[in-house]
């Protein structure tokens, strides 16, 4: 393997571990992050000439540790007794796997602490666990680089000022805290899958890919958790459809019209395996597991006409009990339209008008149902509202064409 590829691979596989190890030792996210970045910069410089070291991860950890100590000395923090004692430690040999995994879990939970704003949790997780650079994260969320830098800096300062603990939460707090971590990962994935910017690609694979990579990591760290498995399955089954989802002309293709031959069979197989694995446990599923099961039913149908809509509606009924939000009710109505007809679905959708009036998918769903019921003028008005509210370029293109087709009839 050449040096550049070795650096890239080590970065992908070991960044979180190096940052976590340094954070534990120095008790400071800032120092850990900067030292890890310095160490990788040194590797980029040295490995092409000196060759790739036999244990790249250990080489980088040792180098990063030296950089951190240099920085603490440089900044004259020697009066800080805690840091002083940490600096006196010998270079600790690589720890056994169990303890390493524990380190990365701590990093996840610290970055997703509930006292941080949700957008800060996303940014911090992508930086500290994902190893994305600040400019990369800023580009991903269409924020200026300086603003993103400030957001991350502020989050790290809050962690330090409040002594937000660097640990995996106690068993009693774990479910709530883990759901926060999963929410961050799902947010990253969704922003990639239905990108909201007018100037961005409709699907941002760098974001969906990163979300899947981090979810795989947390799955490796918490293999027994059903919701972690459910979220990973949900992401894989969604990602499997990405190439069929946007037409060559940049228009959104709905599930009904997608070329199913273009779906990624490997991702679907892996997603189905996870869903079956969860079903086999017999444990009551959470939200992500039910969403994954719904997607498993969709992706099991070779042709849209073979879709088992009654099973999908039954799964949505289960989801409504877990998450009685109007958005879940809206998605249930879409499935009901296939099972009981668009008139039944429209009645259910119209009951949500008070809560979802500002949500583009509400108007898009109404527009489609009204179109199918032959209520042209009302459908056109609903398309207009959906177009005004939609942020995704491919979706806007699709809705506009649908509306204009109505106009020419």
């Amino acid at each position, binding site marked *: 393997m050449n040096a550049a590829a070795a650096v890239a691979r080590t970065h992908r596989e070991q960044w979180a571990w190096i940052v976590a190890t340094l954070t534990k030792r120095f008790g400071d996210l800032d120092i850990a992050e900067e030292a890890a970045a310095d160490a990788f910069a040194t590797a980029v410089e040295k490995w092409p000439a000196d060759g790739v070291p036999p244990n790249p991860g250990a080489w980088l950890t040792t180098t990063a540790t030296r950089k951190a100590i240099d920085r603490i000395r440089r900044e004259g923090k020697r009066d800080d007794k805690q840091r002083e004692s940490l600096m006196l430690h010998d270079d600790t040999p690589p720890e056994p796997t169990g303890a390493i995994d524990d380190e990365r879990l701590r990093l996840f939970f610290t970055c997703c602490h509930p*006292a941080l704003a949700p957008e800060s949790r996303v940014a911090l997780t992508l930086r500290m666990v994902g190893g994305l650079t600040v400019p990369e994260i800023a580009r991903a969320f269409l924020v200026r680089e300086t603003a993103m830098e400030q957001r991350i800096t502020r989050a790290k300062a809050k962690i330090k*000022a*409040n*002594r937000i*603990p660097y640990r995996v*939460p106690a068993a009693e*707090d774990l479910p709530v805290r883990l759901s926060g971590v999963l929410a961050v990962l799902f947010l990253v994935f969704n922003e990639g899958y239905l990108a909201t910017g007018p100037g961005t690609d409709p699907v941002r694979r760098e974001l969906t890919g990163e979300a899947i990579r981090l979810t795989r990591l947390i799955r490796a760290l918490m293999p027994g958790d059903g919701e972690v498995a459910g979220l990973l399955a949900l992401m894989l089954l969604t990602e499997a459809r990405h190439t069929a989802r946007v037409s060559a002309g940049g228009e959104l293709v709905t599930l009904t019209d997608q070329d199913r031959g273009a779906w990624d069979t490997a991702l679907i197989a892996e997603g189905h395996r996870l869903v079956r694995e969860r079903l086999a446990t017999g444990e009551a599923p959470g939200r992500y597991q039910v969403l994954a099961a719904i997607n498993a039913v969709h992706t099991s149908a070779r042709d849209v006409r073979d879709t088992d809509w009654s099973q999908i509606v039954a799964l949505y009924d289960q989801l409504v009990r877990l998450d009685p939000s109007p958005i879940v009710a809206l998605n249930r109505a879409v499935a009901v339209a296939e099972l009981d007809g668009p008139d039944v679905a429209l009645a259910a959708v119209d009951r949500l008008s008070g809560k979802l009036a500002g949500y583009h998918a509400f108007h898009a769903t109404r527009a489609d149902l009204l179109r199918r019921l032959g209520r042209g003028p009302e459908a056109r008005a609903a398309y207009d509202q959906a177009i005004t509210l939609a942020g995704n370029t491919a979706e806007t293109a699709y809705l506009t064409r649908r509306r204009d087709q109505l106009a020419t009839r």
Partner: protein
Amino acid sequence: MRFFVSVIHDKANSGTPEEMAAIDAFNETLVAGGHWVFAGGLAGPDTATVIDGRDGPALFTDGPFVETKEFVAGFWVWEAPDLDVALKLAAAGSQACNRRLEVRPFL
């Protein structure tokens, strides 16, 4: 480390007997857990005076330094090892006094 915990409300000295009893009970758990440092209720913002002595003779102004509907109606000072402990106490404290709380660390 110490945390300053503000009780946020739109009325001063408005605790009901039930709330006062719940606060007393909560305070006892604070003392028992070694978290208690200090606490007090504050009179309303209409009793405040702002003093500005930055440019020579002090200037006294009647009223609070910032006009808002909600204000700091009281406060605690807690001793806690980290934010997670403080947040757990704050969740119980908010329930006891039936008010929102703000937690901030001392420097």
